[in-house]
């Protein structure tokens, strides 16, 4: 255990302490204790920057299950560090914000902070682990913690719905991912990501490459809310706002991005990887931005905007993965996309976090998040308005904020794609920048809509539930202000991050591209001449403003008024259908009637035996070496068969008992014919006892009822009985015939020879029963005594009537 291991596990340890602090230090808001931890961790992780920026990576091993190759190895390189800083940094700000957001008196703070710390630790574990199984473990903990946090107000129906939905979708993805990881292990024989990257060419050549890739991507896409798995994210907005700001904008939804970035070294360079990720990202981008325009709830807008921005980052990672296709040569063309992805990742975390917090403030102060009720808050809440303005302008991609820089880089990356000349891009490549452009127009549009509807226009107190609206307390404003300041700082001085954070992260995403000692060229400027990107940005702004000006015209169209996502309906119908379908299936199958279950069992035995015989060319009824059958044996057997066949047709119960007795006696006679005196004796005794028993209970038996069965049912039963008998007969005959063919020596030779010599008895059957195989007899005796006890207890302790068994 090194310090790094403790750093990953420290939130879990802290989570254990929280309930005690909450219970015994009631006067201090529990959040203050929590606040220290992410702050310390953030500073601790900052100390790694000098080492990672020089291209160094830190690996600390800790054995967990070494026999299975599962080890808790902590690995810190540029990418992990970037995520760790995001998680702890924004984590600290969110905790600070939540201290003012959640009331000390009304809320169950212990639950909240336990879940939050659980989530933080799990998230750190995901980004800092080198082992895929450890990543999976932490991954599922993030899913669980996320669901717990979404259903924090668990008395609300919508919270539960949202938590369930996110749980189902992300756990579905998590399990697929586990399957993908297992396939990777089968191919390469290791769970370590670094070793997988080293064996990338073996993985590439394997036939399991595509299944492994798709399964892993299912995990990444469900977590990162990519199309069509994005539907859980808008419903997760039922969580408290600090949670939405932390989990559903800055950290958890980026776990999928992290995974894709991390595994680019393994899968990158394959056309399938390129196309799936780029296409999924672009579809998510445009779908999210169009859906965001339709939302009326502030958090709904932000949720869809998160979906859209995550799609943007994903598509950039896809575009950048082409770098692996050409291992050598000029990589600048492809690396722009990865640079844009990393840069936008940081930018998105900053502005989206601040926007969520601003929305939380609006919600907190006005009591609503509905844009149709809000308006004119600019003068009432100037600080919040400024924060929102900065965040939205950055999201829309306006200079001088950081969103502008990453958007320009994004457009450059997308335009570069058309120049790749691989993967059939010359045919379809031109669509990619067009989609990016249209999506950006919509992004611009919903940013303006959100600002104008909330902060501009007329202020109407009558629509609000609260009496008096005022600016939030200073404590609540600290965190969003810090994030907004970061937005501006990163916007004005983007190169502050260039070689300290962005370049190491790029090197981690694209391992093996650089020769040692080299660095990617990272230079982000506001002005790079009259390029295509600049004109596209101008186009985006012009078109966005035009659409906003004509807003009145399409305000009442079905497009704008409809809020529901199409895929929500698909999910709901699918969910209901699954429940109804399985209930229906159970109802058909579980009738509660024994005869139906008998039909199932017998049918399956017939099918299995029949198929086995057919498959292996059975029955082998040949070379049967049978003894001659004398005439009286034929007659005895025919009477025996006749007695069995008569039973189903008898109407009188006594006749049935007598006929059964006859068949029992005849079995005893057959034992005599085949020279088994002990069996015959036992059989006679048992048969008589059974007849007597039947007579004993006869009085209590109900009247024999003739049930009218439909002819179809009768036929089915007949067919099944005949088939079953036939299968057993054929099976026994084949067994006999095969036994003769194999010509094994019978074990009974041993018993005949040694019964007298070793056991001192002439009666071989009895010697076998009590000497050679005495254990069986002992257990049979046990069975009989159990039966006796059961009968006694059934009679003595029987229910008085009315009780259910």
């Amino acid at each position, binding site marked *: 255990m090194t310090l790094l291991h403790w750093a990953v596990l420290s939130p879990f340890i802290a989570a254990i302490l929280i309930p005690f602090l909450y219970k015994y230090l009631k006067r201090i808001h529990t959040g203050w204790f929590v606040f220290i931890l992410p702050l310390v961790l953030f500073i601790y992780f900052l100390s790694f920057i000098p080492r990672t920026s020089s291209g160094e990576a830190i690996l600390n091993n800790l054995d967990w299950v070494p026999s299975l190759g599962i080890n808790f190895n902590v690995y810190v390189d540029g990418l992990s560090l970037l995520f760790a800083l995001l998680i702890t940094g924004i984590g600290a700000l969110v905790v600070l914000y939540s201290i003012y957001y959640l009331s000390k008196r009304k809320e169950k703070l212990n639950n909240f902070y336990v879940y939050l710390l659980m989530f933080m630790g799990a998230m750190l574990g995901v980004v800092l682990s080198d082992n895929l199984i450890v990543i999976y473990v932490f991954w599922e903990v993030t899913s669980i913690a996320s669901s717990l946090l979404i259903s924090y107000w668990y008395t609300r129906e919508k919270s539960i719905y949202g938590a369930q939905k996110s749980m189902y979708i992300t756990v579905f993805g998590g399990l697929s991912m586990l399957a993908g990881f297992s396939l990777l292990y089968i191919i390469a024989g290791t769970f370590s990501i670094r070793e997988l990257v080293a064996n990338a060419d073996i993985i590439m050549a394997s036939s399991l490459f595509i299944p492994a890739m798709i399964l892993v991507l299912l995990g990444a896409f469900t977590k990162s809310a990519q199309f069509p798995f994005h539907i859980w994210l808008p419903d997760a907005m039922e969580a408290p706002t600090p949670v939405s700001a932390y989990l559903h904008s800055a950290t958890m939804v980026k776990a999928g991005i992290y995974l894709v970035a991390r595994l680019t070294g393994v899968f990158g360079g394959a056309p399938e990887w390129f196309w799936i990720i780029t296409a999924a990202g672009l579809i998510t981008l445009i779908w999210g931005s169009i859906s965001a325009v339709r939302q009326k709830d502030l958090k709904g807008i932000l949720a869809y905007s998160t979906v859209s921005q995550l799609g943007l980052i994903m598509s950039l990672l896809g575009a950048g993965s082409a770098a692996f296709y050409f291992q050598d040569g000029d990589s600048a063309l492809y690396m722009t996309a990865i640079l844009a992805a990393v840069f936008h990742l940081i930018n998105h975390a900053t502005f989206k976090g601040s926007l969520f917090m601003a929305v939380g403030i609006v919600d907190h102060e006005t009591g609503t998040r509905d844009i149709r009720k809000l308006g004119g808050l600019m003068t009432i809440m100037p600080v919040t308005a400024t924060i929102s303005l900065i965040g939205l302008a950055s999201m829309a991609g306006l200079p001088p904020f950081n969103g502008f820089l990453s958007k320009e880089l994004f457009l450059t990356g997308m335009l570069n794609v058309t120049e790749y000349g691989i993967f059939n891009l010359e045919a379809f490549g031109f669509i990619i920048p067009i989609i990016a452009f249209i999506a950006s127009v919509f992004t611009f549009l919903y940013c303006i809509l959100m600002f104008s509807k909330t902060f501009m226009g007329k202020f109407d107190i009558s629509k609000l539930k609260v009496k008096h609206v005022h600016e939030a307390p200073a404590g609540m404003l600290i965190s969003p202000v810090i994030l907004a300041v970061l937005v501006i700082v990163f916007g004005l001085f983007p190169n502050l991050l260039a070689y300290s954070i962005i370049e190491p992260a790029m090197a981690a995403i694209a391992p093996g591209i650089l020769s040692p000692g080299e660095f990617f060229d990272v230079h982000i400027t506001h002005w790079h001449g009259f390029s295509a990107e600049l004109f596209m940005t101008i186009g985006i702004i012009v078109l966005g403003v035009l659409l906003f000006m004509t807003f009145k015209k399409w305000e009442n169209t079905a497009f704008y008024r409809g809020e529901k996502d199409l895929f929500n309906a698909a999910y709901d119908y699918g969910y209901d259908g699954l429940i109804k379908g399985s209930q229906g299936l159970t109802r058909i199958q579980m009738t509660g009637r024994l005869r139906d279950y008998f039909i199932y069992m017998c049918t399956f035995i017939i099918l299995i035996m029949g198929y086995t015989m057919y498959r292996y060319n059975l029955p082998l009824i040949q070379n049967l070496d049978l003894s001659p059958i*004398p*005439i*009286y044996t034929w*007659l*005895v057997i*025919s*009477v025996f068969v*006749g*007695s069995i066949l*008569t039973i189903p047709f008898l109407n*009188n119960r*006594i*006749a049935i008992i*007598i*006929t059964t*007795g*006859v068949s029992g*006696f005849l079995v*005893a*006679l057959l034992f*005599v*014919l085949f*020279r088994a*005196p002990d069996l*015959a*004796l036992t059989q*006679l*005794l048992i048969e*008589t006892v059974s*007849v*007597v028993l039947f*007579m*004993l209970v*006869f*009085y209590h038996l109900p009247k024999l009822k003739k049930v009218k069965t439909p002819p179809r049912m009768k036929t089915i039963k007949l067919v099944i009985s005949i088939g079953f008998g036939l299968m057993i007969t054929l099976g026994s005959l084949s067994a006999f015939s095969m036994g003769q063919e194999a010509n094994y020596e019978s074990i009974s030779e041993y018993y005949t020879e040694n019964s007298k010599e070793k056991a001192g008895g002439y009666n071989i059957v009895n010697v076998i029963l009590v000497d050679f195989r005495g254990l069986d007899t002992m257990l049979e005796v046990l069975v009989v005594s159990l039966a006796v006890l059961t009968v006694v207890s059934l009679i003595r302790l029987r229910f008085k009537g009315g009780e259910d068994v």
Partner: protein
Amino acid sequence: MFDTVMIIALSALSIALVLLFIRIIIGPSTQDRILALDAIGVLLVGFIGILMILQDTSVFSDIVLVLTILGFVGTLTLSKFLERGVVIDRDD
């Protein structure tokens, strides 16, 4: 010669068995069936006796004894059931 006689005897007994079984099936009364079952018990005694001669063994002799007792007990049980409706009376 001896074997042939035995086999003929066994076959004759088997035919008797078939005929008794027909009586059990067609009834018509329960008493007929019980008598037929009893007769089958007695018939089995003869059957086993001849088999013992044929197989040249005496190991089935105790079965013959048991069979006679059981045939008696079985018939008694069934008859008592027909008479009283129960097999074992309660003392009270």
